[in-house]
C-alpha cells in the first residue's frame, strides 16, 4: 500500500478498552501511527502534545460525548474527524456531519471499510481538495436544483428530496465543483470513488446514466450532463454558491 512517506498519526477516542486496542493494532498494521484516548480530557492532553492527522471519535463516551468533543475540536482545528457510533441512525449521522465531522461510520464496521474511509479522507485533506468538498452549509444551486454537501442532500426544483447513492453524490459533487469544464473519465472515477474505494467496478458511464435519470426533469438532464466523445463529460449548468 502506498502510504504517505511520513506515517499519518491517527487519534482514537473510544471508551471500550478492547475495541481501542484492536483499532490500535489494526491501524498500526496498516501503516498508520495510532494514539488512543479513553475520554475527552485525555484526548485534549494528547492533542496538545501531538500533531494529529485524523481523529476517530466515538459518539458514546463517558463525560462529554462525541458530539460535544467534535464541536470543541472544530472551534480551533480543521483536523479531519470520523465519528464512530453504535447508533446507526440518520439523525445522529446528520448531527455529526453538521457539527463538522468529515464522515460517520456505524458500528460494527469492517476493517476494510474503516481503512478505506480513513484513506479517502486523508487523501481529500492532503490533496488540497478542500475546495472540492466545502465544509458546513455552503449550498450549491444549479438549474433550480440545490445540493447540500454537508448533509449530502439533493433537492429537486420543487423541493423534493432525491436520494443519491454515495458514488452518485460524489460524482455529482465532482461535476458541480467543476462546472462548464470537460472532466475526463479517469478523473471522475477517482473523484467519485474517493469515498468508497471498495465499491464495485461500475463504470463512470453507468453512474452518469443513473445520475441523468434521477436528474431527469422534462428531458433537461441530457443537456445538463453532456457527453464529450472519447474524453468524458461536461456539466453545462452554472453553479451558484450560497
Amino acid at each position, binding site marked *: 500500500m502506498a502510504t504517505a512517506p511520513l506515517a499519518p498519526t491517527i487519534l482514537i477516542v473510544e471508551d*471500550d478498552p*478492547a*475495541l481501542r486496542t*484492536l*483499532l490500535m*493494532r*489494526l491501524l498500526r498494521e496498516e501503516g498508520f501511527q495510532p494514539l488512543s484516548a479513553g475520554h475527552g480530557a485525555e484526548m485534549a492532553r494528547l492533542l496538545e502534545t501531538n500533531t494529529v492527522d485524523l481523529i476517530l471519535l466515538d459518539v458514546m463516551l463517558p463525560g462529554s460525548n462525541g458530539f460535544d468533543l467534535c464541536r470543541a475540536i472544530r472551534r480551533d482545528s480543521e483536523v479531519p474527524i470520523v465519528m464512530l457510533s*453504535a*447508533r*446507526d*441512525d*440518520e*439523525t445522529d449521522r446528520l448531527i455529526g456531519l453538521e457539527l463538522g465531522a468529515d464522515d460517520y461510520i*456505524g*458500528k*460494527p*464496521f*469492517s*476493517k*476494510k471499510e*474503516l481503512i478505506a474511509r480513513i484513506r479517502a479522507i486523508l487523501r481529500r485533506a492532503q490533496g488540497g481538495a478542500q475546495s472540492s468538498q466545502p465544509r458546513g452549509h455552503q449550498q450549491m444551486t444549479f438549474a433550480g436544483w440545490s445540493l447540500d454537501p454537508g448533509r449530502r442532500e439533493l433537492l*429537486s426544483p*420543487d*423541493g*423534493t*428530496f*432525491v*436520494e*443519491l*447513492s454515495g458514488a*452518485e453524490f460524489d460524482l455529482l459533487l465532482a461535476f458541480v465543483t467543476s462546472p462548464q469544464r470537460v472532466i475526463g473519465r479517469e478523473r471522475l472515477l477517482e473523484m467519485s470513488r474517493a469515498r468508497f474505494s471498495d*465499491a*464495485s467496478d*461500475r463504470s463512470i458511464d453507468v453512474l452518469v446514466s*443513473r445520475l441523468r*435519470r*434521477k436528474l*431527469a*426533469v422534462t428531458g433537461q438532464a441530457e443537456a445538463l450532463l453532456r457527453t464529450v466523445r472519447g474524453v468524458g463529460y461536461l456539466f453545462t449548468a452554472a453553479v451558484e454558491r450560497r
Partner: protein
Amino acid sequence: MKPWRLWPQRLGGQVTLVLMLAVALEFIGSSILFENSRIYPNRDNQVRRAAEQLVTAGNILENIPAAERPARAAALSNRGGRLVWSPQSALVDRERSAEHKLKDEFRDAEPGLRDRDLHFNAELGHALPRDTHLKVALRLRDGTWLTLKTRIRAAPWAVLLSSVGSAFILGLGVIAAAALVLRNLSRPLRALAEAADKVGQDAHVRIGETGAGDLKLVAKAFNAMQDRIAGLLRARTDALAAVGHDLRTPLARLRLRAGFVKDVEAREALEADVDEMTAMLDSLLAYLGGQEDPEPRRRTDLAALAMTVVDDAVDAGRPAAYDGLDHLPVQARPVSLKRAISNIVENALHYGGEANLTLTREGAAAVLAVEDSGPGIPEAELAEVLQPFHRLDSARARNTAGLGLGLTIVQQILHREGGVLVLKNRPEGGLRVELRLPAL
C-alpha cells in the same frame, strides 16, 4: 354537575331514583284518575238513587194533605232530581225500548215499585257524553201523580278514554325517563367497549371519564391500565433497544478481530456471522424504534429511492430491475421508506430469485410494485406473514437469516406514512408486493 347535587353518582342510586320517580309519578297520576272517576257514579247507582228518591217522596206525599204537596215536592227536590206533584199525569208513557229497559231497572232497584203505575219518558241528550234526560211519573195511591225529572249520566266514555290516555302518557313518560338513564349508562359502556377493542392496535386510546360514578371509575381505571401497559411496553422496548445498541460494540470488536484471522475460510465465515447478527439487530431496532423514529417527514422522490435500491442490488450482481416513472414525490421519511423498499426487494431476491420493480401512479396513489417469480405465499398465510416473528415453514427450512420482522417493519413504515402494503400471488406465478402511498 353542581346544580345536580341531588342526582346520585352511583349506578345503583341512579337506578333507584329513577324507579322511585316512576312509582311516584304512577301514584300521583292514578290518584288523579281515581278522583276524576268518582265524580261519575255508575249508571246502576244513579238509577237506584232516582228510584229511591221517587219512592221516598211518594210515601211522604201520600201522607200529607194535597194542599201541602207542591211545596213539599219542591222541598224534596235536589240537584240530582226535581220533583213535581200534580193531580193528573203530565206525562205520556212512551213505550219504547229505552223506556222499558229503564222501567225494569227502576223496578229491580226498588221492589216497592213493582206493582205501581209508572210513566217513563227518556230523551237521549245530543251533546257528548250522551246523558239520558229522564222523566218518571209515579201514580200515588190516591190517583195523583209525582213526577221526577232527572238525568242519568251516560257511561263516562270520555273519562275512560282520558284515563287510558293518561295511563299511556304516564307509561311513555316512565319509559322515556328510563331510556334516558339507560342511555346515560350505555353510552360510556359503549365507548369503553370501542376503546377496549382499539387497544393494542396502534395509538393510545383515551376514553372520556363521564357517565355514572361507577362508570367514571371504570373509565379512569381503564385509562390508568393503558398508561401502565404503555409504560411497561416502553420499559421493555427501551431495555431491548439498549441491549441492541450495547451489542454493537462487542460486534464491532468481533468484526475487527475477524480481520486478523489468517484462515480465509474461517475469516469469511466469521464475517458472515457478524453480518447476520448485525442484520438481526438492525431489524429488531427498526421494529422497536418504529414508533419514536425521529426522522422528519419530507417531500421525497419515491422513484429515486427505488432506483437506488435496485442499483445497489445490481451492483452486487443480483437480478433486479426498475421500470417506471423517473420522479414521483410522496410525503415520507426517506430513510425508513428506503428500508421498507430494500426489505421487499431483499425478500423478492431471496425467495423469488429476482426483483422487478415498477412505479406507477394510480389516481391519488403512488404504487411501487415488486414482483418475483418464486413460489409465492400460500393464500392462507398471506395475512400471517405480516405478523412479527412469523416465518413460513419453507423459509425456516432454508435456514434463512433474520428474525421474521422484515414485512412487519415494512407494514409499520407504510402505516406511518399513511400507506398500505398489499401482498398478492401472481396468476402467472410468483409474488407481487405493492407499496401504496398517497402521491403528492
